[in-house]
């Protein structure tokens, strides 16, 4: 059986800079894939290409056997791809509830026919359930721009899930969270696993990634340098070197 998501020889060039260099890997049905690598490795660029924010320079993304590489962003979303952003991008002037409601794809697919459609109370109830699950029920009517950092990250997840996606890409959802918050976040992510076909999780917090992922893909300088079980991959000398090298360069 072929994998649910196949990434084949993906390249992304920004003028001189090669951000993705021949990236290939598969993600299977039901998998939670950890995507790690030092800063600037190309993890975010990979998500941006797969979710249609950037156009690939070369290569193919197969989703359930269909080539989706050059589909526009909104069509990828309608095929079940949802994501969060490393630098939080909520609709700051809309309320928390509205941020979730707006992501309901039953309406975004046909915006002009929703004017007289009923079922608003049901929509709200569903959105509230989601907010409850990420622990934001109490903030329902707050403006998204006023949320604390950890809350904003959780709202991004709720918004991504409101479109009932099949694949969820999380770009450093625990960044800037303290230990307690990331524990809660891990619980939230685990609670959604069964409802999604695939979760791809970018994270620098090794403890979190080891705990959550079934498999790891490690990137460095735009290339995939290791794929495998978390314990094996994290012990791989090349992976350790990539991280240490990055740390030395930093310090």
């Amino acid at each position, binding site marked *: 059986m072929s994998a649910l998501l196949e990434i084949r020889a993906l390249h992304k060039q920004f003028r001189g800079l090669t951000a993705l260099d021949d990236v290939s890997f598969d993600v299977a049905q039901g998998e939670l894939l950890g995507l790690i690598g030092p800063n600037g490795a190309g993890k975010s660029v990979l998500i941006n290409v797969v979710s249609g*924010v950037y156009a690939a320079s070369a290569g193919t993304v197969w989703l359930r056997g269909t080539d989706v590489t050059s589909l526009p962003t909104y069509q990828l979303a309608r095929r079940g791809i949802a994501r969060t952003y490393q630098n939080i991008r909520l609709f700051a*002037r809309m309320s928390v509830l509205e941020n979730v409601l707006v992501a309901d794809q039953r309406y975004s697919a046909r915006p002009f026919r929703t*004017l007289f459609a009923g079922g608003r109370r049901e929509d709200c109830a569903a959105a509230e359930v989601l907010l409850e699950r990420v622990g934001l029920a109490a903030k329902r009517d707050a403006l998204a721009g006023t949320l604390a950092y950890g809350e904003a990250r959780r709202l991004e997840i709720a918004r991504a899930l409101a479109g009932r996606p099949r694949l969820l890409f999380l770009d450093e959802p625990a960044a800037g969270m303290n230990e307690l918050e990331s524990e809660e976040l891990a619980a939230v992510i685990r609670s959604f696993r069964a409802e999604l076909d695939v979760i791809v999780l970018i994270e620098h917090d090794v403890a979190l990634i080891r705990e959550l992922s079934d498999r790891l893909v490690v990137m460095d300088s735009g290339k995939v340098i290791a794929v495998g079980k978390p314990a094996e991959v994290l012990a791989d000398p090349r992976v350790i070197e990539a991280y240490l090298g990055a740390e030395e360069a930093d310090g």
Partner: protein
Amino acid sequence: MIQDYVMQTGINILLAWSVYIILLSGSLSFANGGFMAIGAYVSAVLTVKFGIPLILAAALAGAAAFLFGIVVAYPALRTRGLYLILVTVGITASIKVMIESIDYVGGIQGFTGMSGASPWHVVTLVLVVGAALWLISHSRLQRMLDAVREDELVAASLGINVVHLKVACFGAGAFIAAVAGSFYAHYLLFVRPEDFGILPSVFIVLYVVLGGMNNLWGPPVGATIMTLVPEFTRGLAQWRPTVFGILIVLLLLVRPDGLLPFRVPTERRLRNRPNNP
């Protein structure tokens, strides 16, 4: 006299809303003076040269501007921010110069012979457009537009067809500006290309910005004040433009987000939880 006030205010409210509708999806348009010109001239030609009744002519002129708006929107909306502003300024300037060079509609001399618009036409239209905007303002559509206006990219990654919405808004704005232009032409009885240049386009945007662009009430409030203040400062007759200009500068300094800056949430606690205040 009172008829003139109603007419002018009503037309300016429609024009302000025509900019507001485009702004719903995040694009600021200085092309609406040009759309108004299309409406005025197309409807005038239809009534004067072909004897078509005014209402039908206005609708056809609106449809023409709608099509024109959609056709230019596809390329134009690839630009953003100040670049889009310049593109729309360019659209207005080009439309004006083109009309000036068409002898069939009188060129620079202007075009005359039309009549028959009454304040009732405009008042009815204001009510209809206002009701439509009110309906939208409480809808899921408004929510999607707000999302597009705040962050197009994120909106797209939530499954919203951003281009589709933006182009539709542009077309709708062009339609309303053109219908307003039709009634304007048939009320003034005489139009010249320079009635529709960049200056009117900027003023329409000013109505919206001074009134507030985050809710449907701001634009008509801005349009009304900006139409009537000059009328009622006739005592200052010869200093009017100066007083008017200073007033705009001061208003922007004191209320940079407009007189009515608030945004109305599309879903509120009170609406959905009647038993749980």
